């Protein structure tokens, strides 16, 4: 349905929790192939399979590596607060339409069930049909005589044409990598250690950094906001000269792979995570820092 609505030029979204999002991967891959904008919200729970209904960040690979079949990427935003949950919906739509690509908000069961103050973004009126026709000349709403039919499809049987289509997609992904990286840092400059964490793990890490400071450990935080495109250069700059980088995730070690690929052995990188719906305590993170470096 999201494919159909997006192909008709409308702003469409859906949300689910991990197993439901696993079911949607077919449609997401088709949307990436047909270059359709749309927003998916995944409030992650623990897996694999039916898993648990408690929070997790174990869909990082699925979200950032494509998840469905084919060479494609989805723009992935990781909110760490209820405010960002609200703000990122508009941002996700903006990016999805700008690049004609699916965008995902990768939240988790902590953020999804948290209550916080929120300033709602300004109300945007629904686009009129005329505006949609103007902004989305590629969409299907009936072929008028002044144009060729619009066909929304990801199919192409000629390999030489399909390769060109793929190269076009790769070019677009490169543009996104260059223009859309988002991240946030705290206390990075004067820190001896760096924690890299996203979403709710980053919120917990903030508390861990406070506790560490009380124990005279200088720890900074690097929080990727876009998980794809991953802030590769930025994490390298933040990690430079540190005694160690601890990647804190609520999974068995997924984003740590991107951090290691970026840092490329220049700084020691370790991972700390809890699994199966258990959320790490700030003290555990401080202990992990002490143990691993």
């Amino acid at each position, binding site marked *: *349905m*999201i*494919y*159909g*609505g997006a*192909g*008709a030029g*409308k702003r*469409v979204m859906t949300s689910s929790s991990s197993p439901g999002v696993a079911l949607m991967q*077919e*449609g997401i891959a*088709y949307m990436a192939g*047909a270059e359709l904008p749309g927003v998916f919200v995944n409030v992650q729970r623990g897996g694999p399979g039916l898993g648990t209904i408690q929070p997790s960040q174990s869909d990082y690979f699925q979200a950032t590596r494509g998840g469905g079949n084919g060479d494609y990427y989805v723009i992935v935003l990781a909110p760490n607060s209820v405010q960002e949950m609200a703000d990122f919906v508009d941002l996700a739509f903006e990016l999805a339409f700008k690049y004609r690509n699916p965008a995902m908000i990768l939240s988790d069961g902590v953020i999804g069930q948290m209550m916080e103050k929120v300033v709602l973004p300004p109300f945007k009126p629904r686009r009129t*049909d005329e505006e949609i026709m103007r902004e989305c000349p590629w969409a*299907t*709403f*009936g*072929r*008028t*005589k002044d144009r060729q*039919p*619009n*066909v*929304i*499809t*990801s*199919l192409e049987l000629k390999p030489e044409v399909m390769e060109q289509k793929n190269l076009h997609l790769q070019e677009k992904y490169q543009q996104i990598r260059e223009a859309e990286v988002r991240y946030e840092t705290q206390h990075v400059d004067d820190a001896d250690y760096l924690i890299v964490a996203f979403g709710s793990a980053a919120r917990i890490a903030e508390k861990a950094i406070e506790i560490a400071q009380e124990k005279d450990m200088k720890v900074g935080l690097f929080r990727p906001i876009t998980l794809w495109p991953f802030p590769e250069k930025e994490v390298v700059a933040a990690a430079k000269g540190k005694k160690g980088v601890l990647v804190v995730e609520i999974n068995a070690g997924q984003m740590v792979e991107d951090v290691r690929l970026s840092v490329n052995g220049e700084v020691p990188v370790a991972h700390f995570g809890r699994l199966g719906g258990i959320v790490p305590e700030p003290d555990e993170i401080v202990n992990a820092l002490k143990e691993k470096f």
Partner: protein
Amino acid sequence: MENEIIAQENLVYKKPALMNDVTMHYCPGCSHGVVHKLVAEVIEEMGMEEKTVGVSPVGCSVFAYRYIDIDWQEAAHGRAPAVATAIKRLWPDRLVFTYQGDGDLACIGTAETIHALNRGEHITIIFINNAIYGMTGGQMAPTTLLGQKTSTCPYGRVPEIHGYPLNITDLASRLEGTCYVTRQSVESVGSIRKAKAAIRKAFEASMAGKGSSLVEIVSTCNSGWKLSPVKANEWMKEHMFEKYVKGDLKDTTL
């Protein structure tokens, strides 16, 4: 005058303007070409050329969008009714239809089909039932008849191993969301005329917001059945019509 016979006033038949001048990839004798033409004719006759969106399936008719000159969306296997649901709900004054085969509609997309019909989406599903997976080499489909030989049941379909043929159009007629459910064929001039009238009625019901319509076309796949086109039509009449009985199964459009 040599050309008098093709004078405008003598014109009794022409190719619909919506049919593109391209060579079809369908096998000679296939029912798809006729049904495509009927769909194009009805859209034209209703004056809906600029307000129609078709949803093509996966299967032989995956390239339906090459042949009819309207906007199309190509759906994933079986998902056409879900795609059509979104388009119709977001553009309610458009004519939205899906065009699907039995492998796509009655197997992979059974859930999408049943739920779209049961929700009473104001869409039309054109359902080409040739009782096999034609495109992939004539494998058994849910609609394969008992005793029918296919590449994956070479000794004939037996219920103990393969289960029973799924009559999804009968099922559809029992759903509250459907307003018009019919079963037609296109093997003769008479049948083609009736099939066209059925497609027209279904499209009009969609535009009048009366509910979901399902037009099954009992079809041949002479390549997959390994018969000549003429023999395939005979086989269809002899075997298919007994299980897939032609006629209106439900009509609440009046």
